[in-house]
């Protein structure tokens, strides 16, 4: 029996992934070309091999929770502050102090205690049909709830975290009841039941099914630079409008990362985050994936510059995380699928 136990333990060690000094294990939600390029650069520069598990952030966080202190992961990368906050409150991230990180990442884009640091910024904006909508008709997210937009709005599913964070920011600005009323009214104004990706919303507007869409900026960049002619045409037909410029500013969010609580390679993990937030890497995110750098003013991408400067909502991003579960429930109540 003892022999059997030893054998099975030994076998399980072999079967489980083991880690060596010059490796870094990353759980990542991000599935963009820019990341693959940067990981490769990092390996070339430091000789540290980067192992990646891609998955939905929520599953990766659950997995970190189940694996506990035995988890092989060193870094968690994900999009949306809501998720980063969720990871922090689940206890799977550890606080990190680094002068470089603090100077690379502005205060509003990182966790006050250093559990996570922002890496890129994206804004959730109103995209409109250049043919059928005048920019003078557009003003705020709140105005999309008005009856004049009946049957003219498209947006994706409420299972999507970007929508959850947008509603979380509205909860932060106006409170629960008004946020619920907004979600209900916008759902009623929709031209079709929510479905598809952010890109599909732009396509629906270009096709003439609806007049405005709620979507993230970088998806429009991807469409404009697509290898498919029809997608470039879509990008031509629609315009970007940054809402709420006269009050709190357009809703923004970050993608970012943190060092896991169980990290065996903490030093390398910090080095990795420092590398991703360095000025040069930030430029790659802008050029390849059309995301804003965490220091929005430093933006170098021509396409992003063409959309113009904008005022961003200054709400502390960790509040979006705190309001997230509430936002999901409000969507359920509002009947926004």
């Amino acid at each position, binding site marked *: 029996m003892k022999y059997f136990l030893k054998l099975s*333990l030994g076998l*399980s060690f072999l*079967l*489980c*992934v083991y880690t060596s000094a010059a490796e870094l*294990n990353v759980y990542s939600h991000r*599935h963009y070309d820019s990341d693959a390029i940067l990981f490769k650069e990092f390996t070339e520069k430091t000789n540290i091999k980067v*192992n*990646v*598990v*891609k*998955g*939905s952030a*929520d*599953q990766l966080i*659950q*997995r970190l929770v*189940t*694996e*506990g202190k*035995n*988890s*092989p992961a060193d870094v968690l990368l994900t999009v949306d502050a809501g998720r980063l906050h*969720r990871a922090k409150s689940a206890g799977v991230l550890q606080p990190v102090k680094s002068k470089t990180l603090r100077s690379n990442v502005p205060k509003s884009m990182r966790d006050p205690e250093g559990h996570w640091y922002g890496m890129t910024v994206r804004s959730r904006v109103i995209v409109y049909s250049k043919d059928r909508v005048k920019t003078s008709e557009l003003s705020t997210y709140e105005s999309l709830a008005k009856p004049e937009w*009946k*049957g*003219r709005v498209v947006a*994706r*599913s409420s*299972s999507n*975290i970007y929508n*959850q964070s947008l509603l979380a920011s509205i909860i932060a600005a106006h409170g629960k009841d008004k946020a619920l009323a907004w979600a209900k009214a916008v759902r009623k104004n*929709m*031209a*079709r*039941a*929510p*479905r*598809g*990706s952010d*890109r*599909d919303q732009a*396509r*629906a507007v270009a*096709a*003439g*099914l609806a007049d405005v869409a709620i979507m993230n900026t970088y998806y429009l960049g991807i469409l404009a630079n697509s290898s498919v002619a029809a997608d470039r045409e879509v990008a031509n037909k629609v315009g970007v409008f940054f809402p709420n410029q006269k009050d709190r500013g357009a809703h923004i969010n970050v993608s970012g990362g943190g060092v896991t609580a169980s990290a065996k390679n903490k030093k390398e993990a910090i080095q990795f985050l420092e590398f991703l937030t360095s000025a040069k890497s930030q430029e790659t995110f802008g050029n390849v994936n059309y995301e804003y750098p965490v220091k929005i003013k430093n933006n170098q991408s021509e396409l992003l510059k063409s959309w113009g400067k904008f005022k961003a909502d200054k709400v502390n991003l960790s509040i979006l995380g705190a309001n*997230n*579960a509430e936002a*999901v*429930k409000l969507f*359920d*109540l509002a009947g926004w*699928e």
Partner: protein
Amino acid sequence: MAAYLIKIAQYWLRFIKHEFYFKLNAWTISALVIGLVLFLPMAEVVWHLTMPAESWEHLRDTVLGQYIKGSLILVVGTAALSIFLGVSSAWLVASCKFPGRKFFEWILILPLAIPTYIAAYSYFDLLDKLNPFLIWIRLNISTEAMALVSDAIVYPVTIIVLASVLYPYVYLVARAAFIQQSNQCIEAARTLGHGPHSTFWRTALPLARPAIIGGVSLVIMETLNDYGAVKHFNIPTFTTGIFRTWLSIGDLPGALRLAACLMVLILFLLILEKWLRFGAKFHNNSKSDRPFKPYELGQIKSFLAILCCLFPIIIGFILPISRLAYWASQTIENVIDSNFLILTANSIAIATAASLITVLLAIFLTFTSRYFGSRTINATNRLAILGYAVPGAVIAIGILLLAKQVNQAIGWIMTGSLSMLVLAYVVRFLAVAWQPIDSGMERNCEQINNASRSLGVTAIRSLTKINIPMLRNALVAAGLFVFVDTMKELPLTLILRPFNFETLSTKTFDLAQQAQIPESAVPALCIIIVSLLPLIWLNFQIRNTEK
């Protein structure tokens, strides 16, 4: 009263003595342990139902109704359309003579090679194709009418997509039932003056009903298990609800309660099926010595029959395959690299491992239960094969819970290891291997085993020298089915895959999630091609046995 209690006690004593005194040995103990271990993930789910679920009231009051509604609409619609496509084509190829009948007979099963989520991706723009129609409504009727139509239209589209690849489950059993039907029944109906229509409605269809219900129950389980297609079309169902509650609201107990509702629904359907099938025992089941004479169809009717058989193949196979092939030809250069070869190898390796282990366990479990005639093992086996009725996402959650407890107890980390993924596949697909092996053993080996045991042959010798050689075909079929199911499996693999580990199915899903559907066609086609090979082999086998 007391006498009654004593009687019960005596019965149990006898049962326990019988089961444990005579039948306890290395075989039965290991079979017992294996059966229970395979049941553990599902037991974990049931066990955790007692935990308080903070969002349950919210779920019950808001979305539970939607999930029930969405799941039921899909189940009813998909089942009805599958019956229509499957039974009509099966009746035509089984009872009528028209050009191309032999060809249709086997090509009608091919959609089985396409997983539901890949079918959905291959039709991803079907809804967009309806945009001009919707815009017409918007311009000519009203925006409200357009919103109503576009809200509702997603259901029929999803039902068509699901049924177009699931109808072969009905077709296969219905065709076999029609062929095996006693020709006395059919000919009696004919001599009593029934034409082909009333023969079908009043004799052939009622006789085939139990078989058709069996096929439909598979369609229903596949519909309820689907995650990729309903996620793609954003239809609120139990599977999407489980993912949403677990991951977005962060309420695992709530998600488990939804899973339990789903399992109750499935259990209800399984019982309903048993109950509906029970009537079959009263039907005439005598085998016919010759197949009944097929109806000769005239030119016009032949043409209609061909159309009728072509339709399901076109929507379930030719259209999806040709679209995927077109996209694959456009994107293959971007997708095929060394990584792609690795993930193909991953898929094949893990599917091979899973099917080998599943078949070995299945043969061990059925043999032990039958050879030693142990009711306990038979019962634990029945528990272990329940995994097939449980959606992959639920099994994955059960395994994660199990891993957490193992981790806390002995610090042995199981998540992210291949062994855990393989265990999950075994739990999910044991029934797939168990069914053909068990029925094969019942048909072919029971009496020989009894004879050899009375002659003093050991169990291991019986197994290796008699059972395994006699069941060779059933074993190969079982292994192939598990292999294909593992290749196609998505939700469970998504949740449990380890580091740097991608399979063809997760790659397809990831690419499709990133709105790169043309790119996802390459791994999707690989899955379909691999899944086709066993279908061709199976068809060859059926042909041989029919001769």
